[in-house]
């Protein structure tokens, strides 16, 4: 590959020191507290920041802005180069997963000849980055004043080595086995996104999906509250932006 003159050049190859650690230690389990804040970026039409037990996601929404054809929801989801333990991974693209989860929640038909751009960035991945990005994105869309049917709330779950189901898994738990990510429109009770990986025998997948949906229902009021707060902040000083 030709050297990229647009970037400062480093060595051709490098390795993470974690690959040379004799045995990796398990990360202590912490209760995963959720922090949600909407409307914190000055430039974007709408924005949201979500944090859950170490996992940090920031999302910005631009639009609606003019574009030919029918309304498109353009989604990008990226992981910061320093967001993972271990190797400095090149950012994965997961925009399509985000798009599929959000499209069912947004009233796209209300925005003909327009484009909505959703940009999500995972700053730190301690498990559940994708579902958190879905929640953050729908918060940001709502913050931007985009018409929606409901918030799409993301939830994750993993199955540990002993077969126990662990909602909101840590990154170490996600690596170990099977995972389910789901996005739910809680008020309508509709599933708008679903990704399952690993091996699921018998009816365990059904059980996992049900547990995941419960997790989403618990997160829903937290997101609603943060939206109310963001709106209240906007009202007294409408010219702040």
């Amino acid at each position: 590959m030709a050297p990229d003159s647009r970037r400062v050049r480093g060595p051709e190859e490098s390795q993470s020191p974690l690959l040379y650690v004799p045995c990796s230690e398990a990360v202590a389990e912490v209760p995963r507290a959720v922090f949600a804040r909407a409307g914190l970026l000055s430039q974007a039409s709408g924005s949201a920041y979500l944090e859950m037990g170490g996992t940090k996601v920031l999302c910005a929404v631009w639009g609606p802005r003019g574009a030919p054809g029918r309304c498109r929801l353009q989604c990008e989801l990226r992981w910061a180069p320093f967001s993972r333990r271990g190797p400095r991974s090149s950012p994965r693209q997961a925009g399509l997963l985000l798009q599929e989860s959000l499209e069912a929640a947004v009233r796209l038909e209300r925005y003909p000849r327009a484009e909505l751009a959703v940009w999500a960035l995972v700053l730190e991945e301690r498990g559940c980055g994708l579902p958190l990005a879905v929640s953050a994105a729908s918060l940001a869309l709502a913050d931007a004043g985009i018409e929606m049917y409901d918030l799409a709330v993301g939830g994750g779950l993993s199955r540990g080595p002993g077969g126990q189901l662990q909602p909101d898994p840590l990154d170490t738990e996600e690596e170990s086995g099977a995972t389910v990510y789901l996005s739910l429109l809680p008020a309508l009770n509709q599933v708008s996104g679903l990704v399952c990986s690993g091996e699921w025998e018998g009816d365990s997948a059904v059980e996992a999906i049900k547990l995941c949906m419960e997790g989403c229902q618990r997160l829903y009021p937290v997101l609603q509250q943060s939206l109310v707060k963001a709106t209240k902040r906007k009202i007294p000083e409408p010219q702040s932006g």
Partner: protein
Amino acid sequence: MAAGFKTVEPLEYYRKFLKESCRPDGRELTQFRTTTINIGSITTADGSALAKLGNCTVICGIKAEFAAPLADTPSKGYIVPNVELTPLCSSRFRPGPPGEEAQMASQFIADVIDNSQMILKEDLCISSGKLVWVLYCDFICLDYDGNLLDTCVCALVAALRNVRLPAVKINEDTGLAEVNLKTTSPLKILKHPIATSFAVFDDTFLLVDPTGEEESLATGLLTIVMDEDERLCSIRKPGGSALSPEKLQECISRAITRHKEVQSLVNEVLESVKSEK
């Protein structure tokens, strides 16, 4: 009324304020926006810092990895800065490979690191000719509102001071590296360069720490990087209106005081991080 005037004649609007030696956001000409620094918030990185100047927000995460040194510099490590201006921070950026401004910023940071001698690349050597550290410094702009360079340099200095490298031994039998995560050591930072940017208005007014709006209206920009010994590490003046030596001297003096402000802020934040632990 004021809002309409601002939209129609933004330059006139600004001039009205500048005549009174103040700015539309209430600052004086030599006043910085509120500077906020948050250190060590990203635990997956080996060192991290979030710097905020007003709305302008940059997060810097540093990841240390192993690499083989170059043949002609067998005991020098690498420091690779990379500034990303994603569509997240402003609608003027498009996804894809780094644009002009991002390339400029990355190169500027690389020059600051080299010129200021803040870190000796020899200090990043683990085993001469075999293994060295490479420090990837990734800057991601989260909110773009002018004065990107100052924010990036602030974040860089703060993040580098947060870096803790694990102890590494080379096993003589296998030749493989052995990493001990329990004993870590900080980087040896020799200098702390801090950048101060100015916007030139109508060839006469010098505005420190310009916002995005001010940058777009200005006739010239100037960035000065100073270290703690009041030595000049770098000056960047990309075209625009000419500056008299007196004016430049004025800017340099402002940069010196700014350095002290930021330095004490970083120290304060580091202290509070330590006491929390």
